């Protein structure tokens, strides 16, 4: 069988006649007939694919620097954030990219549900899609374990423990998954290997997904197939430019998170290193798992909860056969359309319940939500197909477009685009500060912090005063082990000043050539030494309490600087009369549970500031919070400056892409 390609260029012809890659690309992405009337919801498949490539590239670069061991993982991620060139950018792109990937895929799935894209002849496209979603969920779950924070560890423990629900085989399966008796180093290592592998499996299955689609052709909002040349446009350049425009807008949304709200979708507890001895008060999975988490907890029986959770995905596989309607698109199904939108609200509601503690009203709402979810697929859809009175469906796409033009004069694309841009802008501006403020359930006093504005410039003078507070007061008990002296350049110290500060410290080094450890003065490359040689010594010196390391404390607490400031100044000399103060504890208004082992350390006039700033306890608290904000994220200022430039670029680029798209499509409007 001889394949004669239709290209002019001799080299391309030579390759293509031996490996028809160019013919394939031309057929699938150049001349492929796309229905003319698809709306922007159809862009999300392409957006998801581009996000997959982004995740693979950023993930690969991160994997070059990451250390997949229980002892080294957390620190290697912090090294990426602090020392690797643009490491913070790669990390935030990857972490937020995961969320963006799920947003795009969920919209893509709901598009499929609304327009009946799962119906014959696209059943296999749909089922491969469900497999893709499962692969994504596995990949995301394992990826979240890798930073080895508290949520990483405990999320892994809870989810792997799910399998113990199965009788007989449950416990051996869990032990096999763990490679031990609990989540530990073997688990982390294998999760890293699998997390690296699965995206490439996803890539291969995505190619199966698009191949299965292209063989039968794409769906459209009308639900009727392409019947003639007037129904379609060639994929390139009409759909490529339109998808690029959509992706550019999506990038604005994505970049708002990367540069201005990088930790909004995450959980502060993951900035605390994993501790197998202490479970965080509320374990929550990442937001994209919340609806499934709600379904799991809605059923009071352990095994049935797990079964229900898996069933909620399995039911999607059966969808092409559950929906008996002869009409494909909800545009022409007035009853199903209403039930569909209730389903959307239901999924959001389930997600909300998943984030709440499993008590009271949240349990009731979870059960109602679960009932509706299964009821929609297992009861409503099969029945509606038989009994719903549908609207008349146009014969062809061309006819559908003609009917639409007779009804309204303008398209909704421009207002929708503007709305999304405004939304992104509002997100950036409005939430540029800490998004969550919580301190033991008590309202936190808010201060205005210069670093929280959109151009986020840290107050260097305040940070320097904060360093003084740390050195004079906090460093007696609290380590700052992630911060090297050279990092102080970020708050305005010169190289000589840094050398002088470092030299004031004694660092243990060695062994020397006789095998003994020795002391030497600190150097800029050294990190702040810990006041104690190890955790046990720290506990012994503090009545059994472990003073936490302060490098990341601002990011590890939901209220960030407001919380730390409030805590340091929130002591009450006398507790309320119904509270008994145990030995060695103090009453603090803002500490969760109110009983803290650290005494009040900041007093008015307790330190003398070199720059003559007022030295009230509140000012000291604010200054040390400013310094600790810097230690938590030294590149914060640059992140925001770069973010402004990137988002401005994207606005301009989106404008150009929109103009190009309108220019290209002018005869099709």
């Amino acid at each position, binding site marked *: 069988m001889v394949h004669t390609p239709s290209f002019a260029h001799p080299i391309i012809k030579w390759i293509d006649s031996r490996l028809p890659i160019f013919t394939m690309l031309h057929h699938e992405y150049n001349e492929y007939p796309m229905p003319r009337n698809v709306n922007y919801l159809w862009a999300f498949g392409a957006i998801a694919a581009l996000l997959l490539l982004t995740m693979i590239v950023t993930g690969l670069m991160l994997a070059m620097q990451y250390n997949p061991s229980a002892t080294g993982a957390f620190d290697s991620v912090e090294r990426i954030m602090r020392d690797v060139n*643009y490491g913070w*950018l790669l990390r935030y792109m990857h972490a937020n990219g995961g969320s963006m990937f799920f947003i795009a895929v969920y919209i893509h799935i709901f598009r499929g549900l609304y327009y009946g894209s799962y119906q014959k002849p696209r059943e296999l496209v749909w089922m491969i899609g469900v497999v893709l979603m499962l692969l994504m969920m596995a990949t995301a779950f394992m990826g979240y374990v890798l930073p080895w924070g508290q949520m990483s560890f405990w999320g892994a423990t809870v989810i792997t423990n799910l399998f113990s629900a199965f009788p007989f085989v449950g416990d051996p399966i869990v032990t096999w998954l763990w490679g031990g008796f609990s989540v530990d180093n073997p688990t982390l290592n294998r999760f890293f290997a699998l997390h690296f592998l699965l995206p490439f499996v996803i890539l291969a299955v995505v190619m199966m997904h698009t191949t299965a689609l292209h063989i039968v052709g794409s769906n459209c909002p009308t639900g009727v197939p392409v019947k003639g040349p007037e129904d*379609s446009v060639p994929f390139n350049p009409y759909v490529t430019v339109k998808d690029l425009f959509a992706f550019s807008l999506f990038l604005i949304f994505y970049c708002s998170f990367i540069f201005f709200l990088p930790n909004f979708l995450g959980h502060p507890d993951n900035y605390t290193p994993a501790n197998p001895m202490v479970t965080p008060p509320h374990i929550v999975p990442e937001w994209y798992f919340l609806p499934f988490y709600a379904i799991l907890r809605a059923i009071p029986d352990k095994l049935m909860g797990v079964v229900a959770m898996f069933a909620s995905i399995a039911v999607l596989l059966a969808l092409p056969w559950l929906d008996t309607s002869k009409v494909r698109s909800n545009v022409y199904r007035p009853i199903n359309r209403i039930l569909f939108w209730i389903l959307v609200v239901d999924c959001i509601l389930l997600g909300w319940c998943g984030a709440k503690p499993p008590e009271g009203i949240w349990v009731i709402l979870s059960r109602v939500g679960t009932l509706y979810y299964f009821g929609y697929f297992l009861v409503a859809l099969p029945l509606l197909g038989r009994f719903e009175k549908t609207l008349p469906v146009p014969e062809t796409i061309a006819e559908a477009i003609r009917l639409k033009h007779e009804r309204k004069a303008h398209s909704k694309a421009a207002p929708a685009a503007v709305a999304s841009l405004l939304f992104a802008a509002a997100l950036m501006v409005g939430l540029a500060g800490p998004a969550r403020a919580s301190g033991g359930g008590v309202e936190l006093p808010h201060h205005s912090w210069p670093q929280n504005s959109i151009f986020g410039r840290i107050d260097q003078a305040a940070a320097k005063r904060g360093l003084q507070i740390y050195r004079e007061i906090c460093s007696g008990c609290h380590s700052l082990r992630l911060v090297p002296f050279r990092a102080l350049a970020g708050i305005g110290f010169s190289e000589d000043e840094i050398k002088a500060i470092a030299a004031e410290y004694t660092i243990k080094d060695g062994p020397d050539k006789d095998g003994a450890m020795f002391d030497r003065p600190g150097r800029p490359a050294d990190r702040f030494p810990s006041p104690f040689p190890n955790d046990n010594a720290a506990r012994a010196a503090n009545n059994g309490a472990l003073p936490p390391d302060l490098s990341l404390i601002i990011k590890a607490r939901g209220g960030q600087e407001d919380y730390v400031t409030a805590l340091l100044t929130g002591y009450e000399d006398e507790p309320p009369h119904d509270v008994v103060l145990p030995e060695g504890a103090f009453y603090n208004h803002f500490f969760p549970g109110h009983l803290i082992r650290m005494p009040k350390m900041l007093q008015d006039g307790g330190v003398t500031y070199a720059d003559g700033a007022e030295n009230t306890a509140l000012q000291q608290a604010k200054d040390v919070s400013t310094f600790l904000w810097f230690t938590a994220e030294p590149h914060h200022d640059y992140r925001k400056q770069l973010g402004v430039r990137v988002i401005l670029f994207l606005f301009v*680029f989106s404008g150009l892409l929109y103009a190009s798209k309108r*220019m290209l499509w002018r005869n099709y409007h």
Partner: protein
Amino acid sequence: MSVTTHPSGAANTGSAGGEATRRDFLYLATGAMGAAGLAAFAWPVIHSMNPAADTLALSSTEVDLAPIKEGQAITVSWRGKPVFVRRRTGAEIAAAQAVDLKELRDPQPDAARVQRADWLILVGVCTHLGCVPMGQGTTDPRGDFGGWFCPCHGSHYDTSGRIRKGPAPANLHVPEYKFLTDTLVRIG
């Protein structure tokens, strides 16, 4: 499968010249901006592989010279590589200075390779294919020229660390160093 067509007519009539150049300019501007954006994204990806700040910060080592006696040599680790620090004897210095530059594959006078004649500081990595030459220990073979001998492919270095015989193309590399005091040198 249906054959698809491009839109006919309207695009090419009317003010053809103005319309076409405006269209082309728009596509060109969009394409150029897209290319610039891709390049701007590619740079951080590539640069992340360059040495990180902590690697760059550990790029110098201080060596205490006091315990090294005349004729003795020590090896220290600098940037992950061995560095030979040898306190040369008078005979070794004289031999190094007496060599005719025309005999050298990589001509360099001894004075250009040392800051103080009695202290020879070299990166102990053979310039051929990277093995660590022998000659630091008192019982090590030192090759035919009294310096170092690389056992991998037989390169001989003299008392100034210059290549004299064997396949290595260049003299042993002299790192950047500075005497902080008479007995303390910072390498790198």
